[in-house]
């Protein structure tokens, strides 16, 4: 099976009983994608599939054939992600860091489509990403803060 991972085509043997999450972590060494609940509830394994956030633990590996998968590694130089990353640091939105790659991807997908989201829209965008350290306030502020910087009034 061939699919696009972070801008490059990769060819792998995709077993139907392997999730995209296990394919990425186990076989392709993409460890920013975290294994949390494995039930689609926690969002630590979030990736962008053709641009849309999805939980990679609920996708069977062969289902990404011919599609584009983006993880945070593929967005290292993206200006929007850089703003988000810096806002997370400034606002103390990272403690253990386990949820952070998923949070950044959900935040990125939001700001890519909606330059000036309301606080409510930010909450909706990250409702599928659980953070057990920060209590969300700093994360929400960081996303709003990054929005302010990329699209000042």
């Amino acid at each position, binding site marked *: 099976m061939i699919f696009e991972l972070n801008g490059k085509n990769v060819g792998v043997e995709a077993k139907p*009983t392997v999730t995209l999450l296990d394919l990425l972590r186990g076989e392709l060494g993409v460890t920013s994608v975290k294994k949390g609940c*494995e039930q689609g509830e926690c969002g630590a394994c979030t990736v962008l599939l053709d641009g849309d956030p999805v939980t990679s633990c609920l996708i069977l590996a062969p289902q990404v054939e011919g599609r584009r998968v983006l993880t945070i590694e593929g967005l290292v130089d993206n200006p929007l992600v850089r703003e988000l990353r810096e806002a997370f640091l400034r606002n103390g939105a990272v403690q253990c860091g386990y949820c952070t790659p998923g949070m950044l991807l959900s935040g990125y997908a939001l700001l890519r489509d909606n330059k000036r989201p309301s606080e409510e829209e930010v909450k909706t965008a990250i409702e599928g990403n659980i953070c057990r350290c920060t209590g969300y306030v700093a994360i929400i502020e960081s996303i709003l803060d990054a929005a302010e910087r990329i699209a000042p009034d």
Partner: protein
Amino acid sequence: MKPLTGFELLRPSTLSGALELLATLELAWPIAGGTDLIPQFKDDGCESKHLVDLSLIRELNGIKMEDNFIVIGPMTTQTQVISSRLIEENAPALHEAVKLMGSPQIRNRATIGGNLCNASPAADTAPPLLVHDAEVKLTSLEDSRWIPLTDFFAEECTALEPNELMTSIRFPIVHGASSSFQRIGRRRGFTLSVLNLAVYIERDGKNLSEVKIAVGAVAPTPIMLEKVERELKGMRMDTNLLEHARKMVSEAVNPRDSARSSGEYKREMAGVLTERALSAAWTRVGGKLP
């Protein structure tokens, strides 16, 4: 959690291809978005030997207007339903329900047909589609049949035969009608409904010329409250009617205690959600409440 094991994944690109596989392969199951099935396989194992992935079948995806109907392909994702103006304008209850379901990650995968075929009594798309008088098309290699959604649900199963797939969902467009969806969850975001309810109304001046009420998670299947609907039809919409409707709905449902809530709580709240839904739908068709 169990490792996934014991199945092959087949990805037909045509409906006839999928039906053929379901009819010929041993223990073949269809899989839609997988957001319910895959966690279930990880919890309980997977009995199926052949999963037939429906996601590449174009004709099962999309929302369109056909004659006087809105027609939804069962593989349409919840995200697609949310962004559809057709749904927002013609079935606001369905639009509201889908917005409240899952998380963005789930809504990008989960499908409307999957939600119905999973046969959960708490399925959030069921009450809105029931009150909009939806029908579903069930197709096998030999035959196709349209049945009312009210006849689709049975206790822990559906009217689907093993070789059949749900291939379309439709409901009529009614001008001057409106609807509203309300639910109770244990928190606001990303949670299963403890109770859900949809109301559909048609307005004639100050009166309700048509009323439909469907409730989920109070019985083994989502149910419609025909007796209450008949009582309310033709009545003048005011605060007395809301109070009357609240009491009647609370008396009409008989939910059992469950892990998520007591039956008594659901009974009370079914009445409260009815009031909220009637008010919201009434306001939506330009009605005022004295």
